[in-house]
């Protein structure tokens, strides 16, 4: 089934099996694009083991001052909304880590003492894992905002089926990642934490107007607060993946379950089909 669709795999928190689900969906789909948007801690490459064809340093502009032109008038430091500039003893200091690269200070300096210099923020890597196009990015440690990296990743999005392995949480990075998705698959664990996190990403997806459904992961005997949440909020449950020590072990080794086992190949193929059906705007049943 040729689909031109972008599926984001989300979870309120890390460690719920988001990467596991994303890489397996990509593996059974083949001829697809996998994008690892967890730029703070990318893990997809540990599973899909791509051969890289291209690396590209992503930069962001940061101001630098020419002290011979600057007269310490403080116009820029008063204007910077992020307090990234300060005039101390007549000298302009620039705190790069908190600069958001908005460009305002360079625009308003009356003496043209500020110029923009590109500084590295991280690396975008493009590769291939069999027929899967692989994209990931890694933020330089110590940087504060990786949003431009996600933007750079998304620029490389091709047509066809795309699986986005989203960053954890529900903050700015996740928002940026799912803005580009047509459908969100929410992965949830069977704990009260899991249910709480599920509620958060559900709210976020709803806020951004993205259709979504849930996959219950690590299910076991006993109560499943995530399932209860989904049922009471009319959130479609696309499947459940029982806790399996064998699967946990394979995953911890960085192996792709559907490559290793026929059972999981079938499981994820079916899940992919379900996701494609659920995300198809023309087949809303």
């Amino acid at each position: 089934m040729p689909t031109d669709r972008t599926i984001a795999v989300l979870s309120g928190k890390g460690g719920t099996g988001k990467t596991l689900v994303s890489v397996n969906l990509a593996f059974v789909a083949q001829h697809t694009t996998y994008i690892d948007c967890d730029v703070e801690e990318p893990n997809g490459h540990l599973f899909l083991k791509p051969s890289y064809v291209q690396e590209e340093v992503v930069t962001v502009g940061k101001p630098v001052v020419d002290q011979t032109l600057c007269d310490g008038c403080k116009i820029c430091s008063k204007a910077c909304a992020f307090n990234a500039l300060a005039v101390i003893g007549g000298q302009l200091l620039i705190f790069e880590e908190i600069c958001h690269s908005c460009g305002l200070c360079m625009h308003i300096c009356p003496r043209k003492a500020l110029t923009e210099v590109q500084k590295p923020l991280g690396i975008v890597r493009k590769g291939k894992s069999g027929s899967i196009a692989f994209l990931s990015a890694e933020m330089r440690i110590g940087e504060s905002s990786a949003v431009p990296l996600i933007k750079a990743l998304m620029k490389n999005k091709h047509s066809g089926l795309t699986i986005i392995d989203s960053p954890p949480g529900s903050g700015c990075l996740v928002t940026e990642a799912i803005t580009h998705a047509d459908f969100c698959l929410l992965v949830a664990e069977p704990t009260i934490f899991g249910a709480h996190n599920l509620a958060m990403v559900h709210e976020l997806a709803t806020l951004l107007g993205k259709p979504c459904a849930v996959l219950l992961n690590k299910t076991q005997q006993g109560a499943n607060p995530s399932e209860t949440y989904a049922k009471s909020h009319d959130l479609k449950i696309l499947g459940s993946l029982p806790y399996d020590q064998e699967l946990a072990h394979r995953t911890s080794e960085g192996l792709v379950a559907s490559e290793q086992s026929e059972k999981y190949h079938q499981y994820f193929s079916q899940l992919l089909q379900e996701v494609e059906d659920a995300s198809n705007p023309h087949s809303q049943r």
Partner: protein
Amino acid sequence: MHQILILSGKGGTGKTTVASTFIALSQAKAYADCDVDAPNLHLVMGSFEKEQKSDYFGLPKAVIDSSLCIACNRCFEVCRFDAVIPGPTYRIDLITCEGCTYCLHVCPVGAIHTQPMKVGDLKLYERGEEHFSTATLTMGSGTTGKLVSEVKKQLKSCTEETEVAILDGSPGIGCPVIASLSGVDLALMVAEPSVSAFSDLKRVITSARQLQVPVAVVVNKFDMNPTITGEIEVFCFKERIPFLGKIPYDSQVIASLNKGENLACLNTPASNAIKRIYDKTLQVWKERVQQ
């Protein structure tokens, strides 16, 4: 306030479980949940006598007065965050706007002003002498790092200088983690034995070291992959990082968490391991503080 922070690099490794057990064991009078993106600690801390809630405002965001806008496109040209939406009259997407005010400075007709935006709730709970500081972020707002600092500030304001506070950290290595690490005496990293969690662990240790925060490591669900657990131990040894113990996978943990029980009152393999780790953590912390 002395701060012990529980961190994980990767989420879902049992950070909150360890933190809540530590709080119960230490009878800490001050604790906080720094994971404002997805706070979970309140789910297992029982009920509180008092709750104090205050609005948290982020940077004011830009708003366009459509009756003034002449659609000159200047704001669109300068906004680097794709927050300006062109049209017959221009609009600003409040989710993406970062409040930098560049657009304000270029609008020729003064159609843009800023407006304060509530981006979250700061919460302070009280029970006897206990103080619990936490927060929730309004969906889609991105000022996480600053809100973490507010959570810590709020806790500090009601904590004695000598008291030990336990902080449940946030996942990742970005702005919220940097904010949770600042001023901390010891960061205890809860890792899982998997290639991905190990890779995250190394990254978060690098962040902590850049901020000169001492670290220690434990492995949760170590029996899921004893080989990688061993590799983590070797890594810690080589890097001179105190390795404080291993927690086995324990199916009773999920059941008791779902019942809202604290592991400190259980007698199971996992809870006993956490108790031993707690003692060692205190030792390491004391050595650090005395230095």
